[in-house]
């Protein structure tokens, strides 16, 4: 009954188009009023939700990613990837995917990854007569890897909610991200062979070395972030701050591709992006308190378990809900809302919370290309000038590849928990 009231109010506010943070907050307010709880708890929970050191990583990873996306680092990563993959049939598509995977090691957001790769590659792909809507669909799909290969903002959020080690989830993101990349490369090659695309220029070691040297500062970024975390030198939040310092150093003082004005504008943009996510965290903490207080997640868990005890069927059901949520909601909000609801159920199924973190993050990452709410698709549409409908038509196969990789990760946790 309580669950129906909570979710009913929330769903209504969401559907009429209230910003998600406010829909969560207002639904919580309404529930608290009807239940006669002292309302100051709203302010207290909002404060407690944001008063967290691990969450300091959120603005820093966004700042670092946005700043490095502004400079020409992505161009350099693209050139490097092309030096050893360009020879393939449909090579530039493969390069797009691999460059997105490289940049995923720099940014923690899918939209930034898509933007960074689409900006240099979309015009080049067009010039070389690659099928445009497939290019845009492929780059949008590859951009979602931005949140799977560490660093990753959704992973930070998940770990804060599920009380897991950020470093450990980061480490376990490499194989899933690579698997998604390989699935997309497979799809791209199949498309290129079917349409008899020509091969690109041959590989020369000299060119690989030359492009590697120019790309080295970008390629070093993930090494600094992850090396710092895993050696125990930095906490994840500190590593994120180091990444931002590194981004300032590289873009402002080494490459000097952006001036102070652009620097200021980038900070403002990142500040807003980060505050929007953090504001959802704040109001969702009130919501989470209500859910926990009335034991809603436990009720849902026992209701689901009374229908079926089969781990594989329930995982499929969870995947389905994640996929639908990914279609209609933006990644961070879906993650913040769904994680606490699923946790008791997942615990009772005996699925490790690191494995579930991967299921959740990869599933919601896929949601970044599934319309109607699909941030990576929007970015790719803006940069390519193609409509969402046109890109969507070419999306079927890249999406199938991603979903296949995701289901594989859901059912073969061996590949997720390979590193502890």
């Amino acid at each position, binding site marked *: 009954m309580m669950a129906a009231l909570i979710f009913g109010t929330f769903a209504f*506010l*969401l*559907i*009429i*188009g*209230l*910003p*998600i*943070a*406010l*829909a969560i*907050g*207002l639904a919580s*307010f309404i529930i608290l009023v009807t239940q006669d709880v002292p*309302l*100051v708890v*709203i*302010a*207290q929970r*909002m*404060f407690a939700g*944001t*008063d*967290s*050191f691990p*969450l*300091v990583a959120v*603005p*820093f990873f966004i*700042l670092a990613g946005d700043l490095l996306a502004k400079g020409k680092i992505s161009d350099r990563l693209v050139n490097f990837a092309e030096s050893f993959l360009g020879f393939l049939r449909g090579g530039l598509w493969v390069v797009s995917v691999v460059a997105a995977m490289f940049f995923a090691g720099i940014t923690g957001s899918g939209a930034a990854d898509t933007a960074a790769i689409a900006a240099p590659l979309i015009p080049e792909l067009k010039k070389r007569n690659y099928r445009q809507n497939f290019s845009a669909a492929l780059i949008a799909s590859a951009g979602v890897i931005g949140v799977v290969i560490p660093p990753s903002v959704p992973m930070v959020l998940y770990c804060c909610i599920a009380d897991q080690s950020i470093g450990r989830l980061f480490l376990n993101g490499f194989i899933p991200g690579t698997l998604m990349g390989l699935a997309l490369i497979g799809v791209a090659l199949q498309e290129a062979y079917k349409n008899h695309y020509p091969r690109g220029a041959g590989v020369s070691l000299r060119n690989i070395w030359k492009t590697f040297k120019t790309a080295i500062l970008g390629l070093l970024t993930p090494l600094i972030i992850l090396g710092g975390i895993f050696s125990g*030198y*930095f906490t994840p*939040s*500190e590593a994120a*701050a*180091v990444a*931002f*310092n590194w981004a300032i150093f590289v873009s402002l003082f080494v490459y000097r591709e952006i001036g102070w004005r652009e620097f*200021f504008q980038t*900070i*403002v943009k*990142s*500040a*807003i992006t*980060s*505050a*929007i996510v*953090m*504001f*959802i*965290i*704040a109001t969702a903490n009130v919501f989470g308190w209500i859910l926990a207080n009335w034991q809603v997640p436990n009720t849902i868990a026992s209701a689901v378990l009374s229908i079926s005890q089969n781990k594989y069927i329930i995982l499929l059901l969870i995947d389905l809900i994640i996929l639908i949520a990914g279609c*209609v*909601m*933006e990644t961070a*909000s879906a993650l913040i809302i769904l994680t606490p609801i699923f946790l008791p159920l997942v615990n009772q199924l005996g699925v490790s919370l690191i494995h579930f973190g991967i299921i959740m993050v990869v599933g919601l990452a896929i949601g970044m290309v599934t319309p*109607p*709410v699909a941030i990576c698709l929007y970015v790719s549409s803006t940069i390519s000038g193609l409509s969402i409908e046109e890109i969507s038509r070419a999306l079927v196969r890249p999406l199938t590849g991603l979903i296949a990789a995701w289901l594989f990760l859901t059912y073969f946790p061996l590949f997720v928990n390979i590193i502890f």
Partner: protein
Amino acid sequence: MMAVTCFKRLSDGADRVVTWFVVVLLLGLTAVVTLQIIARVFFEAFSWTEELSRYLLVWSTFLGASMGFKRGSHVAITFVVDLFSGRLRQWVSILIHALSVLFFFVGIVYGIQMIHQQVYQISPAMGLSMRVVYLGIPLGFATMVIHVFPLLLDEIVLLARRKE
């Protein structure tokens, strides 16, 4: 009509101040966390850096969120409302902005109440009064009201004109 222009000017002015302030908060956050690393690795860990960075995050969240409302960049589900026709949509838009302002007032009122409840409490590491720390919340929500209220007023005026 004058009132609407006045509110808009207030909103623009507030946003300029808040934008600068949030940039300073974030650069401050960067400096504090960087200092924390340097101090721990080379010297001795400070006790106050982690606490200060958390409070800077809180302030930048609520003030930064107001900047999001000014620019209309908060994420919402719009594809359902997009199906509505002109008239209905106008009403829904008014409803959304009215509900938003309602929640902002909830944030202001209970944010202030929370401050009132913490007369003597100080933060563990810095000895900062928690009233100062909590102030960021009602301040952020007040800025949100400043930004969204003119939008609401604008829509009501527009609707009233069409009725005439």
